[in-house]
């Protein structure tokens, strides 16, 4: 019975919403996948195959509700650079996709998936900005109607020579497409701007019979799955490519999972998600599709249009398959400059403008990490960029740690002081309040003590965690704290924080632990926390989905 209940919860809970969500996601996905396919150098069809395989398989087996998977910016950039490095043998790219899928499944089974959440923010920010910049540079030539390159260095070298060769009609079509992509959302955000741009640009080119590069024929139907034929000597580059894809796909997907958690209020399962993504990439590699990952835009559109369960993601994939079966003759007329315009907007959007605009106000160490990762992503290698970024961030973290050892807070108090503070609280409530004083950096060891003490408490209704002597917290500490809070809340016990320093709060937020900490449960002093408990006791107890606390009234 529980099996059936779990099954219907995963797939059948919201059939109508899942259908509309999947439909809207597919509408957003279609132009993107064609564009990613062309940009990768593997052909528009490969983009669609990837979206179908990953879309259906990753949704069915994944660990995030309403996730829509398919080719994304980062995955396409890697696939393009792989395709550029094996020009005579594209089979190797698909072998890499297959290997990537196997590695992701392994990551999921060994539960290293959750570690991706501990990726420092400046690393992700630098990486995404680098990917955005690469997409912009490699799309410049296609925008003016010239063949593009999958390699950013080649694309940059070609830029000066482009001016004499500009195809004016192509430039007009891309300008027209860009105008639609950016203007339509100003009228209504519900209109799928990229699809409108794609259809209008295609119609325009057809009627005016403009002489600009087009997609060309797309074979109708899916290719039969088959294992790529590779030679033993090719194993090394294939595995290297697979590792890059697996790793970046994991980051890309789990970031989207995090977004979906915020939007739906659900909690995803990272390791299950990686297994789903891995299976999706294996399927995609077998039918010669682009590698895929959880896609933020498509997934959010899905949720906003009603999608809630795993079914919605699968619906999105199945609809794309239906499109593929009927697309052939129409697709051949789609102009490439329009697809380049779509990708240009994607590239611009995934750059982290927030950080770029606020470089001066961002901590110096974060800026250094971000810029190093950005540079390495664009000009050296994506994996090296991420690894170097993590290493650099860790070194800077240790330095911060040694700088921050001295705490400015002192928390000595006499019993008399405590008695005065608590004397106005009725005895039965007083007995249900526990306090826990944390000292020094909250690393794994200290957090373990905290977790153990959780199990021993009985009859506690309030726990006051005193953080004023905690100068730093690491990821494991934050995770242990989160699980301790979860346990307490399961026992209907309210957790209050005293003296939580802003940078500690930021770390808790970044790791997701802050989900459980409301700003209003944080206090500057022990006394204020007690007042809040007092006030809370005086008001009716409210449950659940809405977070709240009471402020004490002035006497």
């Amino acid at each position: 019975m529980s099996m059936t209940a779990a099954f219907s919860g995963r797939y059948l809970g919201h059939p109508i919403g899942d259908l509309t969500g999947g439909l809207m996601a597919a509408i957003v996905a279609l132009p993107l996948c064609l564009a990613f396919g062309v940009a990768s150098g593997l052909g528009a069809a490969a983009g669609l195959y990837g979206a179908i395989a990953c879309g259906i398989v990753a949704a069915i087996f994944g660990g995030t509700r309403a996730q829509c998977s398919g080719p994304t910016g980062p995955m396409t950039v890697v696939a393009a650079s792989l395709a550029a490095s094996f020009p005579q043998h594209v089979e190797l790219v698909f072998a890499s996709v297959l290997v990537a899928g196997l590695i992701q499944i392994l990551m999921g089974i060994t539960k290293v998936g959750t570690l991706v959440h501990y990726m420092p923010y400046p690393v992700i920010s630098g990486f995404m900005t680098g990917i955005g910049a690469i997409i912009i540079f490699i799309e410049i030539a296609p925008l003016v109607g010239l063949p593009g390159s999958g390699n950013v260095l080649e694309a940059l070298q070609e830029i000066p020579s482009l001016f004499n060769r500009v195809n004016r009609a192509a430039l007009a079509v891309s300008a027209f497409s860009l105008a639609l992509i950016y203007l339509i959302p100003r009228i209504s955000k519900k209109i799928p701007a990229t699809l409108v741009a794609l259809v209008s640009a295609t119609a325009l080119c057809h009627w005016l019979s403009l002489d600009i590069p087009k997609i060309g024929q797309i074979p109708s139907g899916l290719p039969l799955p088959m294992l790529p034929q590779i030679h033993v000597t090719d194993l090394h580059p294939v595995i290297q490519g697979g590792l890059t894809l697996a790793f970046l796909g994991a980051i890309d997907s789990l970031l989207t999972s995090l977004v979906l958690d915020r939007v739906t209020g659900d909690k995803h399962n990272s390791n299950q998600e990686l297994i789903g993504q891995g299976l999706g990439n294996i399927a995609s590699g077998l039918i010669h599709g682009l590698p895929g990952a959880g896609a933020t835009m498509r997934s959010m559109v899905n949720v906003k249009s009603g999608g809630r369960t795993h079914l919605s993601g699968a619906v999105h994939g199945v609809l794309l398959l239906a499109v593929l079966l009927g697309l052939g003759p129409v697709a051949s007329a789609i102009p490439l400059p329009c697809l380049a315009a779509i990708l240009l907007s994607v590239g611009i959007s995934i750059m982290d403008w927030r950080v770029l605009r606020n470089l001066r106000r961002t901590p110096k160490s974060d800026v250094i990490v971000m810029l190093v990762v950005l540079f390495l992503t664009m000009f050296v290698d994506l994996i090296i960029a991420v690894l170097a970024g993590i290493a650099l961030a860790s070194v800077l973290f240790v330095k911060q740690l040694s700088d921050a050892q001295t705490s400015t807070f002192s928390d000595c108090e006499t019993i008399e002081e405590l008695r005065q503070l608590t004397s106005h609280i009725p005895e039965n409530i007083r007995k249900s309040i526990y306090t826990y004083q944390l000292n020094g950096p909250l690393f794994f060891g200290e957090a373990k003590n905290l977790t153990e003490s959780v199990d021993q408490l009985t009859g506690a209704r309030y726990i006051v965690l005193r953080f004023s002597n905690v100068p730093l917290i690491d990821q494991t500490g934050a995770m242990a704290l989160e699980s301790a809070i979860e346990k307490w809340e399961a026992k209907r016990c309210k957790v209050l924080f005293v003296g939580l320093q802003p940078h500690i709060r930021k770390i808790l937020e970044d790791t997701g632990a802050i989900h459980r900490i409301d700003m209003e449960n944080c206090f500057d002093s022990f006394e204020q926390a007690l007042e809040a408990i007092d006030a809370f006791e005086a008001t009716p107890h409210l449950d659940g989905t809405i977070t709240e606390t009471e402020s004490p009234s002035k006497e």
Partner: protein
Amino acid sequence: MTAPEENKYAIAVGLDGSDSSWKAFEEAVQQTELKRGVLHVVSIQESVDASYSATEVLAAEKTARERLEGLHIRARMQAEEAGIMIVAAITTGNSASALVDYVKHKHIDLLIVGDTGHSSIWGALLGTTAEKIVRHAPCSVLIVR
């Protein structure tokens, strides 16, 4: 403070940081004093725009939440000056329906909102947030102009 507050007159005010919402808040504080009731300050965090970048969405969400938390700090200070107790809540969703849901869920007696006017042509056709609330709220509604 030990008396159960369940019988107390519950007033809710929608606060989004606009001038009209602050006007509504001031009115709500006065009403709460008058009725010796409890004031719920409710802010709605509307869902952020879809984007190609996950980090962009996460950052936008955080900024939106921090803005609302800032409003609550200011509201709390003003309420404390007047000597009244507030319950501050952030809920998510479409502003009109989220406010109505809150009112139903918390058994609010009086809902106070500012008059926001029409934000666009669509707004004129569909009605303002205040108009929607009047149509659907189960309690008395006071629109502050």
